[in-house]
C-alpha cells in the first residue's frame, strides 16, 4: 500500500497516531528525538556505552505507555522524563554494584569561569557551565530546569531528602548564575 510521508508532521499528530498503533509515526518520533535524548542521557550518566541501551529502553517503554500521555504536544518532555528515570535507575545500580557512596569533591574547578568565558555562543557557555557542576548538582538542575519536576519528585527519583535536593539546587543555581555571568 502506498504510504504518506509523516516526517513533517508535528509532535501532537505523531504522538496521537503512535498511540493509535501507527508504528511508522512512532519511528518518526524516534528519529526526531534520539539525539536530544542521547544528549540528556550523556549529561546525566556521563559518556558511556550505556547511552544506546538506555535510549532504546526509553522508546520501548514509551510505546507501551502512550495512553498515559494526555497532551501529545508534550511528547518531547514526556520522553525525557521516562529517560531520566531510567538513567537514575542505572546510577543506583552502579552505586549498589560498586558499593561506593557518592562523595565527590563537589565544587566546580578554579578555571571554570575561564572555560565558560571561551564559549562561542550562549548555548555552548551554558553547556560548559553545566559540565562544570558537580554531578548531583547537575542532575538536580536538569530535572528542575529542563524537566520541570517539583522538588518532591526530584527527591523521590534521587532517593534523597527534599531538604538535600533544595540544598543541591541552591548551590547549582548560584554556581550557574556566577559561571554564566563570566560569559557576557
Amino acid at each position, binding site marked *: 500500500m502506498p504510504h504518506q510521508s509523516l516526517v513533517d508532521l508535528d509532535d501532537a499528530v505523531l504522538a496521537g497516531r503512535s498511540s493509535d498503533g501507527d508504528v511508522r509515526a512512532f519511528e518518526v518520533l524516534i528519529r526526531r528525538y534520539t539525539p536530544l535524548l542521547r*544528549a540528556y542521557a550523556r549529561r546525566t550518566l556521563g559518556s558511556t556505552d550505556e547511552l544506546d541501551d538506555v535510549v532504546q529502553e526509553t522508546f520501548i517503554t514509551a510505546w507501551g505507555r502512550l495512553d498515559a500521555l494526555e497532551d501529545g504536544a508534550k511528547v518531547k518532555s514526556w520522553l525525557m522524563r521516562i529517560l531520566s528515570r531510567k538513567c537514575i535507575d542505572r546510577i543506583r545500580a552502579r552505586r549498589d554494584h560498586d558499593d561506593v557512596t557518592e562523595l565527590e569533591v563537589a565544587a566546580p574547578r578554579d578555571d571554570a569561569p*575561564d572555560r565558560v568565558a571561551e564559549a562561542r*555562543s550562549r548555548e555552548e557557555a551554558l553547556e560548559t557551565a553545566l559540565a562544570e557542576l558537580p554531578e548531583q548538582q547537575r542532575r538536580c538542575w536538569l530535572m528542575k530546569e529542563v524537566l520541570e519536576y517539583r522538588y518532591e519528585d526530584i527527591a523521590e527519583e534521587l532517593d534523597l531528602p527534599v531538604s538535600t535536593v533544595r540544598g*543541591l*539546587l541552591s548551590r547549582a543555581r548560584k554556581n550557574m548564575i556566577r559561571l554564566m555571568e563570566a560569559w557576557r
Partner: protein
Amino acid sequence: MTPHDDELGADLRPDGTGAADASAADPRSGTTSAADTHPDDLRLDALEPEDLDGHSIDELADYLDAGMQPADPSIDDSAACQNALAAIIRLRQSSLGSLEAAAAQEPPADESWIGGVLANISLEARAGRDVPLRAESPTERPVMTEGAIRSLVRSAGDVVPGVVIARCSLDGDVVRLGAPVRVTVELAVWAGSPIHDAADRVRSAVAAVLAEQTDLVVEAVDVRVRDLLPALPDDDHEPTHDEDGA
C-alpha cells in the same frame, strides 16, 4: 565542613577560589575588576540573602515558578532581587536551548539501532479490543483488532490530499457483532487546503474501507478538524509515496 556540606558541594566564588569570606577579593586572580565593568552590568558577587534584601536565591526561583503571584513588593521593589531574577530567567531560557544545541552534536539514530527498538515494541500494546467479523460456519470465529481497524482508517484518510489523520477511535459495543459503531476521525489539515471538501472525502473513504474490510455496522463517521498545520515550503501536499512498504 560537615559531610552534609561535602555532598552539597562548595560554592564557586567569582574569582574562582573556594568558599571563603565573600567580601575578600583577590586582585591577582585576573577576573573582571571594577574598572572593566560597565556601571549597568549586573554585580552578582554574592547571592546570599544579605545581598538580596533578605531573600534567598531559592525563594526567588520559587517566586518565578509561581508566576510571581501573589505579588511580593519586597522582591518586586528590590533592585538586587530584580537583577537576580533576570539572571535566573536568562538561565532558564537558555537551558533547553543548550540541550538542543548539544543534541545537534549527537549522531542521528542508527538504522539497526532503530530496528532494535521496533523489534521490541509489541503490536499487542496498542491492539485494543477484538472486533468480531462475521462467521459463515461454526468452525470460524474471526476477529480483527481495533489497532488493525485504526490502521485501515488511517490508510484510507491519508490518501486524501492536504490532510492527515491525527487520531481515530471506535465508539460503541465493538466487541458485539452487529452492534452499531460510531467512528470518530480527527484530522490535521494543511493551511490552504479546502477543509470541507477534504472532510467529506475522508468520510467517504473511511466508510468505504470499513465496509470492504470489516463487518462493522457503522452508524456514522464523524470527521473533525483538530490541527491546522503550517503550509509546507514547496506547497505540495499530495501524499508522497514511500517505496519502503515497511
